[in-house]
């Protein structure tokens, strides 16, 4: 019996103690007419050896390509130590640290995570994670609406330069609460938020403005100007950031005069493998004043009965298990293990490691753009970019990408999926993992596929 330790003798003894004839008796409160029959749709048990071989074959089937896709999930070097430590049983098989005294490992680690994340973002407070970047944007919007009580419009400006799936997920999450997401178009020239479009909302009651940095197209938004606009218009700022980029970029806590109010993003680039899209984790940070509207777990330092410092889950009165229908969110289980990995990852990178890796990613993408220019391919937008760039191919991107994939190069993300007007463009990212030879291979494969 896989994963069940009982021997026939023990079963007898236990049933005797209970006073039941057989195990089936224990289910006698379930109406007989709805009891289910054998689950013929489930295959027979595979031993570990058997399933290992099957899964290895499935993994092999998808493996082997050189990847230049980013679009919200980025390939980075993850130190070997990160997941070797993270998968230690004590981290891997613990749960939410409800019993603080028996969970100081996880609790201290989260406190360290919160410290690192506030440092990176320049914000006052971080929670212990949400599900992912997209759903974190949804929570950030809900939080902004709760925080900004003076604003009655519940209108949120969400630029078209934001990741399309972030916009969709946020819409899904907030739409039942009378919140309106208003799309802010991009300047087709620069690839960033169109400042004249934003100007139209000046003086209007806008609850919050979301600012992606870098934006979906890899372009750097004029975060200071946008934040200044928001500050003038009594609009909260929600920063949507790639934390990896913050090794080089001005942190949202320093945008404009007073910084962003709420910051969200996806923690994936800091220690989570691509892994088909998850588990990653959602970052959520805010100003001190907003902490009691923050969703999700938060760890605080506390003092014990001996006066010794330690760590506990705190401010739980925001959460569903205490406040139920009045909670700041329904979130319960979060992405703790990925946060564990990410914290170790950040400790191993350190400030210099993060900065240098970010700079190398940026430089690699520039190299790729230069080499693409040599074969007549140019960026679609003029705005400065970080480590990702839209290239205009002059022909349907879908076919080009398919031909590249046939040569085991995943050449980028087809922007036609987002907007038919961009069906001739791809989004390409060359992180620090790419060598000059990789970039040359990209160019050669692209050229052959054009």
């Amino acid at each position: 019996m896989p994963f069940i330790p009982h021997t026939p003798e023990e079963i007898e003894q236990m049933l005797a103690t209970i006073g039941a004839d057989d195990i089936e008796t224990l289910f006698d409160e379930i109406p007989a007419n709805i009891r289910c029959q054998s689950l013929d749709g489930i295959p027979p048990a595979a031993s570990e050896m058997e399933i290992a071989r099957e899964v290895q074959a499935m993994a092999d089937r998808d493996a082997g390509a050189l990847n230049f896709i980013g679009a919200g999930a980025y390939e980075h070097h993850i130190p070997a130590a990160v997941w070797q430590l993270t998968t230690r049983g004590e981290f891997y098989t613990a749960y939410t640290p409800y019993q603080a005294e028996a969970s100081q490992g996880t609790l201290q680690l989260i406190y360290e995570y919160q410290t690192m994340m506030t440092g990176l973002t320049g914000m006052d407070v971080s929670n212990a994670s949400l599900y992912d970047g997209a759903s974190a944007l949804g929570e950030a919007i809900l939080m902004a609406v709760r925080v900004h009580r003076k604003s009655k419009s519940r209108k949120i400006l969400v630029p078209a330069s934001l990741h399309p799936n972030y916009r969709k997920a946020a819409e899904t999450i907030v739409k039942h609460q009378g919140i309106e997401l208003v799309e802010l178009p991009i300047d087709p020239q620069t690839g960033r938020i169109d400042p004249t479009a934003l100007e139209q909302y000046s003086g209007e009651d806008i609850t919050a403005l979301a600012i992606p940095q870098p934006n979906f197209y890899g372009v750097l938004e004029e975060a200071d100007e946008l934040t200044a606009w928001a500050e003038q218009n009594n609009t909260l700022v929600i920063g949507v950031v790639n934390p990896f980029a913050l090794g080089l970029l001005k942190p949202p806590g320093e945008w404009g005069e007073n910084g962003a109010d709420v910051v969200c993003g996806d923690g994936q680039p800091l220690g989570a493998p691509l892994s088909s899209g998850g588990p990653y984790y959602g970052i959520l940070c805010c100003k001190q004043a907003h902490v009691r509207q923050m969703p999700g777990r938060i760890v605080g330092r506390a003092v014990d009965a001996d006066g010794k410092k330690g760590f506990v889950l705190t401010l739980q009165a925001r959460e569903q298990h205490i406040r139920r229908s009045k909670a700041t969110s329904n979130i319960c289980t979060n992405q703790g293990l990925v946060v564990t990995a990410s914290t170790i990852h950040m400790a191993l990178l350190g400030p210099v490691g993060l900065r240098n890796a970010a700079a190398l990613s940026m430089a690699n993408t520039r190299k790729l753009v230069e080499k693409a220019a040599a074969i007549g391919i140019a960026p679609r937008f003029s705005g400065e970019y970080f480590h990702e760039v839209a290239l205009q191919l002059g022909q349907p991107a879908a076919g080009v990408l398919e031909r590249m994939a046939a040569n085991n190069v995943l050449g980028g993300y087809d922007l036609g999926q987002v907007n038919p007007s961009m069906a001739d463009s791809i989004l390409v990212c060359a992180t620090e993992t790419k060598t000059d030879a990789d970039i040359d291979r990209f160019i050669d494969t692209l050229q052959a596929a054009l």
Partner: protein
Amino acid sequence: MLIFEHATPGRRATAQAPATMADIDLPKRFARKSPTGLPEVSEMQAVRHYTRLSQKNFSIDTHFYPLGSCTMKYNPRACNSLAMLPGMLNRHPHAPLSHSQGFLQMMYELQEMLKEVTGMAGVSLTPMAGAQGEFAGIAMIRAYHDSRGDAERSEILVPDAAHGTNPATAIMCGYKVREIPTDEQGDVDLDALKAAVGPQTAGLMLTNPSTLGVFERNIMEIARIVHEAGGLLYYDGANLNAILGKVRPGDMGFDVIHMNLHKTFSTPHGGGGPGSGAVGVAERLMPYRPIPVVARDGDTYRWLTEDDLPDSMGRLSAFAGNAGVLIRAYIYMRMLGKAGMPRIAEFATLNANYLEKRLVEAGFDAAFPQRRASHEFIITLQKEAKELKVTAMDFAKRLLDFGFHAPTTYFPLLVPECLLIEPTESETKEEIDGFVAAMVAILEEARNEPDTVRSAPHTMPNRRFDEVSAARKPDLRWRPGE
């Protein structure tokens, strides 16, 4: 010591980063000037620090962890090693179908297996935890009513025993919450339910077995009442472990369900997550499933997106949910196989009933002594709290000293001084007997030296914390120079 306190300016884990900063031309207005505050430590320091930190945790791999409602069972190591094969870890979520068939096949088969064990018509794997699955489910209920022009339905019914995520979810979906009381036997109060339903009823959320550790016997009657009122029935699958292969939510009349794959299907949720809250739906809710979903066309697999499911309740994440968790659940289910499914429920139930019986024999009060335990059960320490002034919290903390993680305390809220105890099927009789012995010893202490219990724990890295002060003056991050 915090990792920051191990740091020294200029120190680095050199092997982990490019040696020097590449030449880049980042305009000043975009550039960071302030420090990131990341710690400057060597690779060994980081390894040593986090290795030692980890040792301060209780976990399934080190301790019995009978945290009720959380299904802390053995997490097979194979699920980890296989989900972490390079081919699994390196697949980009936007990889083309040509480089995705292995993964998609696995996800498709997982959907099919979950349909089979739940009796639902369709499954979407995308929700990233139980609570998000609840959100998806209630949003589907709303989409269903809306599609029929049935826009007046404004209430979700929730039993008072429900998990906090249930009412919180209903609110997020724009509903009002109406609580339904529980009767003395732990079942939903049918009269109250009948009185509560009406044209305003969008649906009822129910956990079965409930968080009281008993099976809701009137489930078919409840389904009838809600359905006749035009409402839909939502199944909170947190306790699916109890009934796996024994009775299926679909056969109980539920229209939409979530599963906590991280509980029932044993994916680790280290330190608080990640989980997976895959949802299942009855036929009439098929159009509203959250996207993406995996479909099979002949021999190939592909994603269903907005184009295929235009009425979907929407997207919940940037990609397709917690894929790495889903892979682990898939592997676990395959290792259980057809015969293994009902055995999970059987031995989880056997362990719970045995443990309850032994505790009752030892003098503890079961909250529902007249009922069968499901995979978990409740002990109420009301008597001890009153007579000995030793609370459920005191017992919980003292258990740590005996080498057992505490059960869930003070939930569900309606049972005073409660411990919700879920041993799971993977624990041995010896371990359970050891837990009983510890409870008995603590009861003895509570009688003879109550302060030992009240001031527990005594053997952990910390004694009991002053949580009130901590919440009053929150210290949520370390500051340089501390």
